């Protein structure tokens, strides 16, 4: 008999963990915690981002207005008294400023507010755009000349900032645009109910404004620019992308050319967007002499950028149509082309549409290539009046407009930029939601 260790009696209970096992279990728990922490960080960042955007941007949808009763004096606005619109147009915004000033003075006196401010300094709490606002109103309603109208004037961005607590009495110490006495007046007017914050539709529909007038700047025209670009992308990228995918998925023989095309497409999908901007600048603007800053050029560049996305998703949805469909079509005598166009393509259509919408959403948020083809650095002041000018006249686009605001010095523009982001994100969320709904509604499992 050799010495056999006695195994009959366990040295410790199986239920009791030894040191090594405890260590391993602790490592297990640690590892799992790392994963949870990683996800938590990711979600936290998302939450911070969204809270920042909404917190800082929602202010842009509200603007401080001052309600005044303005006497539209005939002697000032229409000296001849014949309501000839050409004559009224000759009165520049300088002709309207005294009316506003007088209206403000009357209002202050009527409310019994004490102030040492000169009328000129009082009128400075109004926006530099207010006179133009009034002028546009009068030009639209010349019949009202000679009467007194109640009108809501935009206030200066500093006053607006004060009402939104962005500007404080401490922060204006060195500010030339506003002083403490003016803020006292603002407080008094606010207490009397003449000056308050209201929903600001012109931020959504209006045009950009110059550096000195952040309170008048809006996204509307840039939105139209984006719309035209998306139109170009849709018209070009969808048919070309679908045609390319049909060829690659259904017809292409396995050869060198097909291989080259496939590698090309996957590489194009990963080329930095700014490189497409360089391509657009060199080919569309310098070589073809298409107009600078035109949504058409932007649309062409974004088309080239979006094509790989659309091709990849279209191929996936063509692939998901089972071969039995093709076989059945071929079996009843359809040609290859007929089987694809009459049977496979309609069945793949929901998937193609979903992919296209997602590609468009990507293109809508893209900024870098637009900088190179000149869609920044100017003020797009009027909405285009026809489809041709919508495509060819210089315009901005939503992300380019946001970039433009982010670069300006006045912090009031930052609020606009965040607000612009909210609008942009609303578009993106809507598009993605439509894509998800389409997928849910029409997706077929074979």
């Amino acid at each position, binding site marked *: 008999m050799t010495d056999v260790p006695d195994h009959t009696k366990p040295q410790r209970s199986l239920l009791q963990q030894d040191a090594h096992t405890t260590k391993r279990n602790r490592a297990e728990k640690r590892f799992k915690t790392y994963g949870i922490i990683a996800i938590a960080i*990711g979600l936290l960042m998302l939450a911070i981002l969204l809270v920042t955007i909404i917190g800082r941007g929602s202010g842009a949808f509200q603007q401080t207005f001052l309600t005044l009763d303005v006497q539209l004096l005939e002697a000032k606005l229409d000296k001849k008294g014949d309501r000839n619109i050409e004559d009224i147009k000759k009165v520049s915004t300088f002709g309207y400023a005294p009316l506003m000033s007088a209206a403000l003075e009357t209002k202050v006196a009527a409310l019994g507010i004490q102030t040492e401010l000169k009328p000129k300094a009082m009128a400075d709490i109004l926006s530099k755009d207010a006179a133009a606002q009034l002028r546009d109103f009068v030009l639209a309603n010349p019949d009202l000349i000679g009467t007194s109208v109640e009108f809501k004037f935009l206030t200066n961005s500093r006053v607006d900032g004060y009402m939104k607590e962005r500007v404080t009495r401490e922060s204006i110490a060195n500010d030339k645009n506003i002083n403490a006495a003016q803020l006292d007046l603002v407080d008094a007017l606010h207490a009397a109910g003449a000056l308050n914050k209201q929903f600001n539709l012109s931020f959504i529909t209006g045009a950009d404004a110059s550096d000195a007038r952040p309170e008048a700047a809006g996204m509307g025209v840039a939105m139209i620019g984006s719309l035209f670009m998306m139109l170009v992308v849709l018209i070009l990228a969808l048919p070309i992308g679908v045609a390319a995918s049909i060829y690659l998925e259904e017809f292409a023989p396995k050869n060198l050319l097909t291989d080259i095309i496939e590698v090309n497409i996957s590489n194009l999908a990963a080329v930095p967007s700014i490189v497409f901007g360089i391509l657009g600048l060199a080919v569309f603007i310098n070589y073809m002499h298409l107009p600078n800053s035109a949504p058409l050029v932007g649309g062409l560049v974004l088309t080239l950028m979006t094509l790989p996305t659309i091709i990849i998703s279209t191929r996936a949805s063509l692939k998901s149509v089972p071969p039995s469909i093709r076989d059945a079509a071929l079996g009843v005598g359809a040609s290859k082309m007929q089987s694809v166009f009459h049977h496979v393509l309609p069945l793949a259509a929901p998937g193609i549409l979903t992919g296209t919408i997602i590609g468009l959403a990507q293109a809508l948020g893209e900024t870098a290539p637009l900088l190179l083809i000149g869609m920044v650095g100017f003020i797009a002041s009027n909405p285009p009046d026809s489809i041709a000018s919508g495509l060819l006249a210089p315009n901005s686009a939503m992300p380019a407009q946001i970039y433009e605001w982010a670069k300006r010095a006045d912090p009031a523009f930052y609020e606009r930029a965040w607000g612009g982001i909210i609008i942009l994100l609303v578009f993106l969320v809507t598009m993605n939601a439509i894509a998800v709904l389409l997928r849910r509604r029409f997706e077929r499992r074979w």
Partner: protein
Amino acid sequence: MRNFLNVAPTTLLVLVLLALTVVAFGIVRSRAMAAASGDSRKLHSLPNYYGYNAALFTAIPSLFVLVVWLLIQPVVIQNAVIEMIPQSAVDQGSSVNLVMSDVTRVANGLDAAVQAGSINPDRARNLSSSDTDVRALLAESGVALGSDVSPEVLAAAQRYRSMQGTGRLLMFAIVSTIALAGLVFAFRVTTEKFRARNMVERFLLSMLIAAASLAILTTVGIVLSMLFETINFFKLHPWQDFFLGTTWAPNFRGDSELSILPLLWGTLYISIIALLVAVPIGLFAAIYLSEYANSKVRAFAKPLLEILAGIPTIVYGLFALLTVGPFLVNLFGRGENGILGVDWMSGATSVLTAGLVMGIMLIPFVSSLSDDIINAVPQSLRDGSFGLGATHSETIRQVVLPAALPGIVGAVLLAASRAIGETMIVVLGAGAIARISANPLEAMTTITTRIVSQLTGDTDFASPETLVAFALGLTLFVLTLGLNVLALYIVRKYREQYE
């Protein structure tokens, strides 16, 4: 009638072509039916195919010629007109291109004036700068010119107009002739026995091939457009300075130092910080989601994380500039008033700002790619490991991750190429100072930022300061392409192991 004439000739031509196409479809379809004496069963193909065939023959070749014509005509005219401009007409400090843009402006202005009816066509043709003030004349019709029109420019503009007029007429004639010829050809070949469907399908197939080849064309376009300008750049600027110098100091009066090294350093530094943020977080998130999380957590956390990937980069850029940057300044740069009481950071833009935000952007990129790769590891490997008594984390670390490693490396490389090519975050968050420094709290600049700044605003495509952007773009393209190809190669090689 006026409105009709005002439609640009190209639009008119396209409308004519469309009309011809519709006519062709109708005529040829009925011809086919007539050939079969009204009984479509006698035809080789369905009657509509004869119509489609005619429509394609009418529209496609003529449209193709039209597009080519539109691309080539401006170049031909430009070259012909540039030859007319004598060297003496080019002022000091100006260039032939600037004079040429004056010429086109005068020519277009005259066209606009004629169209607006302020001068009649004959007068526009015979204008001479000695007896009329062309500038004032054009100003009346809303075309502003920067300087007075010299006789040479006016002559060139007249030549430009006449060539353009002739070109338009020729284009109209040739393109519509081709369309008609196509129509006649289709009409002639249409008989009972004609295999219209096969013809149409061959046509369609070649269009599909053309669409697919656009990808190649785009790549070729990208490479060529940057290559030519890059060659021009190296003719004006020594390549040694570009690749080996250490200073980036563009100076629009000439004599600039344009070296890529400081920009490359900034780019790589920011990308490395971004990857240091994104890779651990993304990887652990992917591991947790694919290995530990139950389906409920997965269905909730995965789409939420992917939202981060769908947010446009301009949003991240603004976030970097206005939120993260000021926060970091509060942390590191306020001296006694700051959170840490140190004064290391002077402005909101820095390598760290851009890197952190870019890292956040890349988290979902890394996590969803790694998630796919980890899920592709066969369950049998895990089961084997569990069977040997390994814990879950040991299985992941010692079995799953090594098996998924090539794929994960590929994902990281793709993320790196994203980081290198990212523009908006660095334009807004990284600063504009080119320097080689190890301090992440300093502002630095990147390749993409410099491309944007050299190519926006007033650009002169004859100066090295502008052309350098193309050299930078080409470098960027090659860099990212290399990373992508490497990543795809690694991923493909890995996939073969389990298939």
